[in-house]
C-alpha cells in the first residue's frame, strides 16, 4: 500500500500542533514530576485524535496509514518527549499494521489499540529472564519492558511450541509489573512476573518483527528529540545576552548549533528510508532500521548533550527541559538492544547481502 506524502504530512503536522498546545514544557515537567493527570489527559486526547488508529489497518478500525505514519507520529512524540504509553502503543500498532490479513489474534490487538482500550508495554532493554507458555498459561519473569505509567498490558515474546508473542493483562496477581526507579521519568521500565497468567492473545513468531518496530520507534524518537534540542538551543542563544549581545552571535557557539543541524540530515533520511522499507515488507528492512536506529541514537545523544551545555548553568537545573531530553536520549541508547549490538546486527545484514553478490559473481 502506498501512502501519500500529503497524508503523512497532515498527520504529523496535526500531531505537532496539538502537542505544542496540549503538552507544552509546563505539562512535560508536571508529568516528569509525577502528576498522573497529565498522561491520562494526553491519552484521551490521543484516542480522540486517532493517532494510534492512524497507523492501524482499516479492518480493525484504523485509518490504514501504516508504518510510515507511525514513524512520522513517533518523531513528533519524541519532539515533545511524550509519555511512554503513546510510544509503546504506536510500536504495537506498527506491528499489527505489518502483520497482514488473516491474523485474527493480531487483529484483536489492533482493535483494542484503535479504541485506546489497551496501553501495552513492549520489550525495551535487553533484560534478563523469559516467559514460557505451558498448558495455555504463561509463567516466568522478563525485565526491561517499556511503556507508560498507566500501562495495563504487555506484548511480549513467550516460548511455547516455538517462538510466540503473547498479550498479557497486567492484573497485579497472575501478571504483576514492578517498575524500576529510572532517570527518564517520561517513560516507565520494569519487570513483568507471571504465574499461570492466561494470555488475551497469542501470535506465532513475531518477536523479531516487534523488536524491529521498537528500533524504528527509537530512531523516530531520537530524530524528533534532536530537532527539539536544536530549536530550543537556538531560541535560547538568540535571547540570552552576555557582553551586551546575544550569545548566539559568538562563533564558538553558533558553529555548534550549525553542527547540530548538520548532524540531523542523515538520521532524518535514514528514518524515512527505513520506515518505507518496513511498510513495503522489504527483505532488508530490519538492516536499514538498525542503521537508522544506531545513527539517530548517537546523533540525538550528542544533540541533547550540546543542548545542555549550550544552556550553560540553567542547563544544569531541573527547571529547564534539557535534562529531560538528555535522560530520554540516554535511555534510548539501550532500547531495542544497545547501540553497538544494533550496529552489529546491521553489519550482519549488509554482510549477508555482500555474500550473495560475491556468490553471484563466482
Amino acid at each position, binding site marked *: 500500500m502506498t501512502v501519500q506524502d500529503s497524508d503523512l504530512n497532515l498527520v504529523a503536522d496535526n500531531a505537532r500542533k496539538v502537542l505544542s498546545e496540549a503538552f507544552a514544557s509546563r505539562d512535560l515537567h508536571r508529568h516528569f514530576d509525577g502528576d498522573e493527570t497529565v498522561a491520562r489527559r494526553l491519552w484521551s486526547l490521543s484516542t480522540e485524535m486517532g493517532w494510534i488508529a492512524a497507523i492501524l489497518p482499516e479492518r480493525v478500525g484504523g485509518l490504514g496509514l501504516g508504518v510510515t505514519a507511525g514513524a512520522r507520529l513517533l518523531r513528533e512524540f519524541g519532539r515533545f518527549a511524550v509519555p511512554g504509553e503513546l510510544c509503546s502503543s504506536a510500536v504495537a500498532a506498527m506491528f499489527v499494521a505489518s502483520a497482514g490479513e488473516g491474523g485474527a489474534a493480531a487483529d484483536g490487538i489492533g482493535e483494542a489499540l484503535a479504541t485506546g482500550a489497551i496501553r501495552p508495554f513492549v520489550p525495551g532493554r535487553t533484560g534478563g529472564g523469559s516467559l514460557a507458555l505451558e498448558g495455555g498459561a504463561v509463567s516466568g519473569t522478563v525485565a526491561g519492558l517499556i511503556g507508560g505509567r498507566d500501562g495495563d498490558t504487555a506484548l511480549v515474546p513467550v516460548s511455547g511450541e516455538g517462538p510466540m508473542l503473547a498479550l498479557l493483562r497486567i492484573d497485579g496477581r497472575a501478571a504483576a509489573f514492578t517498575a524500576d526507579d529510572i532517570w527518564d521519568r517520561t517513560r516507565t521500565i520494569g519487570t513483568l512476573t507471571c504465574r499461570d497468567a492466561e494470555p488475551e492473545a497469542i501470535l506465532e513468531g513475531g518477536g523479531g518483527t516487534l523488536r524491529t518496530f521498537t528500533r524504528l520507534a527509537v530512531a523516530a524518537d531520537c530524530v524528533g528529540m534532536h530537532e527539539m534540542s536544536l530549536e530550543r538551543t537556538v531560541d535560547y542563544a538568540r535571547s540570552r545576552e552576555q557582553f551586551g549581545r546575544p550569545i548566539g552571535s*559568538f562563533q564558538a557557539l*553558533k*558553529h555548534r548549533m*550549525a553542527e547540530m*543541524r548538520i548532524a540531523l540530515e542523515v538520521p532524518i533520511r535514514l528514518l524515512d528510508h527505513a520506515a518505507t522499507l518496513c511498510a513495503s515488507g522489504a527483505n532488508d528492512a530490519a538492516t536499514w532500521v538498525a542503521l537508522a536506529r*544506531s545513527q539517530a541514537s548517537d546523533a540525538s545523544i550528542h544533540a541533547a548533550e550540546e543542548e545542555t551545555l549550550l544552556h550553560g548553568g540553567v542547563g544544569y537545573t531541573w527547571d529547564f527541559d534539557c535534562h529531560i531530553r538528555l535522560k530520554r536520549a540516554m535511555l534510548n541508547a539501550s532500547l531495542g538492544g544497545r547501540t553497538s549490538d544494533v550496529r552489529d546486527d546491521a*553489519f550482519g545484514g549488509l554482510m549477508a547481502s*555482500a555474500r550473495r*553478490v560475491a556468490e553471484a559473481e563466482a
Partner: protein
Amino acid sequence: MILDHIDDENRFRDALRAWLPDALSGRPERGADEDHVAHDGRVQAWWLGVLRTQKLATPHWPKEYGGVALPFRLRAIMTEELVRVDAPTPMRYMISFNHLPATLIPWGSEEQKRKYLPEIAEEGMIWCQGFSEPGAGSDLAGLRTRAVRDGDHYVLNGQKIWSSFSVFARRSIVLARTDPDAQKHAGISFFLVDLETPGIEIRPIRQINGGAKFGEIFFTDARVPVADRVGEEGMGWKIAQSTLASERGLLWFEAAEKLHRRLDGLLVQAAREGADWPADAEMRRCYTELRARAHGMRLFLREMMYGPPVDGAEELIRTAAFKVAFSTFRMDLMSFLVRLDTPDAYQVGNTEDDYLGGAMFSYLTGYSGMFGAGTNEIMKNIIAERGLGLPKG
C-alpha cells in the same frame, strides 16, 4: 544513438549500459615512461572524445552552444551508469563544463557564448578559475587584483592562488577590482582571460597528495580586451554567485555515488576473499556507521534534486549542510580505509581519481573538500546566520 531514447528513462539507461563496455574498452594504458599526470590527462581527453561520438560530452548544455539539453534526470542516470563501470571522470574540465556555461549563459554576450562555449564542447578547451588571492580566501570580496581601463583593454596586475587546473588550462575566469573606491563587493568585475597573454605567469603549487592540480597566476600589466569582460563593470560579484552555484548538484552526486560504490565493493571483496577485518569489532562498526552515512548522503542529495521545493533559508541550510556533512564523511571514510591497513594505505598506488584512488591518496586529497568551495567554517556561519537565524558576530 543513445540519445534516440531521450524520452524514456529506462530505455536511455539500457542503451547507455549496453554501449559502455565497448566504449570503455579502448582506455589508453599508461606508457612505460609516462608519468601519472600525463597519462591521466590522456585518459580524460580520450574519454571525452568517446563521449562526443554520442553527443554526451557536454550533454547538459543548450543545443545552440554544443550540448543536447539533456534533462536533469537523464544526466543523473548517466552519472549513475558511468560510476557503475568506473568510467574516467574528466575532472580537468570541471570549470569548462560547469562554471563557464553557468556564468556565460545567464550573463555573457552572444559573442562571448559563440566564441567560448563551442570550443569547449568541440575541442575540450580547459579553463581554470582565478578567484582566490593570498589575501582573499574566505573573504573573497576582499580581492585586490586590479583591472585598469586603457582604451579597448583592461590592464591587470595582481596575484591569484588556489586556481584549480591552472597548470593544464589555456583560459581562466578572473575576478578583478575595477573600482577601488567603491564598496568592496561593488568594485569587482568579471573577466575571461587567455592565459597566453603576455604578462601572465602560472606557477604550480605542490599539494600534500603529491599532485599539482592548482597553482598561482601572476598578472603583470597583462592586457585583456574589454570585449572579454562579462556583464557590466562592477557586476563581478553578482556574476560570480552564478559561477559558484555550479559547484554543486551533479558533481556531488557523482562523488556520493562513487564513495557508496567504494564502500559497497569493499564488503563484497571482504566476503569473496574472507577478509579478517569484519571480525574486528571496531572496524566492523566503523564500516557500518560509514555505510549508513553513505546512503544517508545519497538520500539527502536525491531529495535536494527531486524533492519538493523548499524556501530560501532552508535551501541555503541544506546546501551548506550537505557540503560539510559530505566532506567530513569523505574524510572519515578515507581515514577508515587507511586504518584498514590494506596495501594502498602505505603504497602510493592509484593517484588518478580523487575518490577512487589509493586509500592514502584519497585520504590526503579529502582535505581539499574541507576548505575548498567555501570552508566548512564559512558553511557553518551560513547555516547559523542565514538558516537558523542566529545574529551575526
